[in-house]
């Protein structure tokens, strides 16, 4: 959805990077099968994170990788994860979330911004139509709608607590991450992953859009909480806000750190550890530096000397 949850590629091993790409491509391919070819456009790194997590829970016999050709990169075949239950579920969940977001936008947005949810309507219809053959999504879609409605109510009421809104979004992601898991241990781990990831994504998005939202008088949880102290004289996020935001976001990442340590050993777990320990802190650094947290699909990373070191050095002071 937002692309804040991605690995920090420079510190991945080559084989880990290959596997990560294979999961990404496998998810894209599976989305083509499960929710229709057009749905592949809605793919994002956040969904890939969910897919990697759900695949880490699968029995190793269920996970296989194979060379395939893909219509986008037709020049040479790529290594992809074969369709498995985790990927099918992720594709279904992605369809539900995209549809939920569309309905939410349709309610909240005004003016030209309304065009986007309208344009997405036929795509969402076709995705919902396709997905029913592979995975029953009514229960999940219902849960997502309820959470989004709750969130929308809080936003309309002008909620001044960033925590409460972030928590609702966290709970939404918790529903998405745990749906369909029966084993109680897996549910607990996935639940923690979902909650923390959701909160992280929500707050990062709020921070990213802070200046725009204030300029356009739109709801923003951080602006609501901080009021006049949100921006400094130059109209940039104030140092106080940045410092508080960073520390609080790291608390969520610590929760993810605890959860990732409980996963079974394996290459997917190592990738998840990279995302949790380095990729997400890197997203934070980018956002705090005022760059968009989402550098786009093509630039999976930027090699900047001491990109991760920057964080720790700044903290030592």
């Amino acid at each position, binding site marked *: 959805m937002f692309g804040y949850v991605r690995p920090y590629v420079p510190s991945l091993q080559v084989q880990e990077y290959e596997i990560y790409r294979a999961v990404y491509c496998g998810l894209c391919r599976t989305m083509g099968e499960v929710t229709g070819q057009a749905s592949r456009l809605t793919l994002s790194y956040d969904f890939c994170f969910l897919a990697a997590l759900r695949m880490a829970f699968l029995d190793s016999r269920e996970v296989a990788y194979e060379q395939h050709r893909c219509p986008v990169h037709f020049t040479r075949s790529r290594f992809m994860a074969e369709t498995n239950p985790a990927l099918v579920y992720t594709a279904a969940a992605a369809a539900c979330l995209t549809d939920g977001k569309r309905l939410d936008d349709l309610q909240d947005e005004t003016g030209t911004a309304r065009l986007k949810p309208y344009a997405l309507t036929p795509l969402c219809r076709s995705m919902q139509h396709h997905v029913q053959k592979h995975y029953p999504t009514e229960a999940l879609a219902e849960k997502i709608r309820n959470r989004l409605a709750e969130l929308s109510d809080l936003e309309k009421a002008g909620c001044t607590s960033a925590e409460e809104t972030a928590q609702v979004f966290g709970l939404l992601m918790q529903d998405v991450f745990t749906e369909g898991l029966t084993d109680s241990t897996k549910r607990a781990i996935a639940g923690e992953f979902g909650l923390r990831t959701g909160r992280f994504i929500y707050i990062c998005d709020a921070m990213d859009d802070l200046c725009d939202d204030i300029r356009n008088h739109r709801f923003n949880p951080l602006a609501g909480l901080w009021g006049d102290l949100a921006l400094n004289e130059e109209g940039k996020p104030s140092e106080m806000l940045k410092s508080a935001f960073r520390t609080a976001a790291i608390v969520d990442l610590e929760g993810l750190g605890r959860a990732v340590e409980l996963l079974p050993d394996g290459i997917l777990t190592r990738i998840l550890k990279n995302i949790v320990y380095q990729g997400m802190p890197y997203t934070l650094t980018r956002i705090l530096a005022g760059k968009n947290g989402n550098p786009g699909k093509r630039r999976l990373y930027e090699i900047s000397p001491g990109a991760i070191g920057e964080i720790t050095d700044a*903290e030592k002071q």
Partner: protein
Amino acid sequence: MKDPYSVLGVSRDATEDEIKKAYRELARKYHPDNYAGTNLAEVAEEKMKEINEAYDFVQKERQGQTSGSSYGGSGSTYSSYSSSGTTSFAEIREMIRNGRYVEAELKIDATPAGDRGAEWNYLKGCLLVQRGYYYDALKYIEVACYLDPNNAEYREAKNRMNVRSSSYGSPYRMNRGQGDTDMCGLCTKLLCADMFCECCGGDLIPCC
């Protein structure tokens, strides 16, 4: 925690007999025997405990020995509920220290906007940390530091939070790639190799 007088349903200036009567009435109503075997047994037990504690407290207070009571020894807390006006942050601190967070939170939220200075922000932040509301808590602590930059206590709280987050992610792959990768080691090894070659009559590095 509630006002013991309101738990018993009597006014502050009720006579000894009135209090006793109210207590007996309530005790009969919530007696565990009435609830035995139902789903509400636990709730009733809680209620009964509350009533007993309130009665004990009132009795002791009337005999002028409040210090040893189970209410944290601060009988003044209750009277302060009725007396609105200036906020005593010391009192809120006392509540936080004794773990009475709900009470403290009610009190802090009731503080009039005019009294919300640095200390108010700091205490509000502490209470939110207690609840795990970090996004909100950090805001109040930052604002406290901003309003009173010289206060060591507020700075200390802020630093504690920052230090806690600073070590995040550092254990990741710390034990990898720490072999002999530095250049000094490499040079030393080359020189050693050269020396051994020279001993044997050969030469690895011609210039030395």
